């Protein structure tokens, strides 16, 4: 048997914090991300997901037509996850992405200015209000961006790209820090 043992550590644990008065970049806790895919033709899935997510205070973020992320700060116990998947069926299917994707928070007065260097999405509050999500390229990396506050964004990115995206974001933020 191989001596090699994988070490479990958060994807961005070794990254140096980026923080200033105008902009702050921080890795979010690796809690729960569930990717929900609705069956074709299903209606009103949003309110259905809302009713499932509300009691547990989970956030629901739209991804694309018929797809959502259910996001939570805390890891979800296996039992709870199983019952969530069971509750989704047969209208939709859930896939656990908690270890597959990483969340990054970028906040501050200059957050949208820094992000705009990487994406073509219009981040003006009138076009991209609080709660709005978009999947887009940031540089060459596909990422899911949500405005979670007037001056705060949450970025969900595949784990393998998280370090690279963090380095890009840090470089994009340099002039504001």
């Amino acid at each position, binding site marked *: 048997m191989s001596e090699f043992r994988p070490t479990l550590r958060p994807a961005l644990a070794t990254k140096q914090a980026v923080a200033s008065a105008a902009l702050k970049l921080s890795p979010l806790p690796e809690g729960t991300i569930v990717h929900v895919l609705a069956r074709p033709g299903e209606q009103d899935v949003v309110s259905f997901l809302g009713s499932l997510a509300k009691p547990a205070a989970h956030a629901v973020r739209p*991804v*694309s*037509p018929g797809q959502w992320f259910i996001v939570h700060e805390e890891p979800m116990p296996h039992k709870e996850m199983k019952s969530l998947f069971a509750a989704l069926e047969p209208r939709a299917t859930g896939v656990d992405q908690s270890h597959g994707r990483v969340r990054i928070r970028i906040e501050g007065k200059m957050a949208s200015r820094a992000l705009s260097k990487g994406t*073509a*999405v219009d981040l003006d509050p009138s076009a991209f209000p609080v709660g709005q999500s*978009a*999947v*887009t*390229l940031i540089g060459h990396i*596909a990422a899911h961006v949500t405005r979670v506050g007037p001056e705060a964004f949450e970025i969900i990115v595949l784990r393998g790209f998280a370090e690279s995206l963090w380095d890009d974001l840090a470089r994009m933020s340099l002039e504001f820090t």
Partner: protein
Amino acid sequence: MASLVPCPHCGQRPKEEFTIKGAALARPAADADAVDWFDYVYLRDNPRGAYEEYWHHTSGCRRWIVVTRDTVTHEVAASRDAADRARSEART
């Protein structure tokens, strides 16, 4: 980021987010003649002007869309989800 492509789900996005498949042709019936299938698989016109193409929004919503585009001016006349297009054609 010069050319913008309107995605019916995501709005205006740069072409870098998309993958182009090519002309959106009507698929022959499964038991159609070999000549029809040869045409469909291998032969392409290279029109100057209006053109219907499949685009995949790879780095966005990951939906296939059909873009009606002018090959000379890159003016986009329409863009719709490929599934909706297939459904509307099945009805007619």
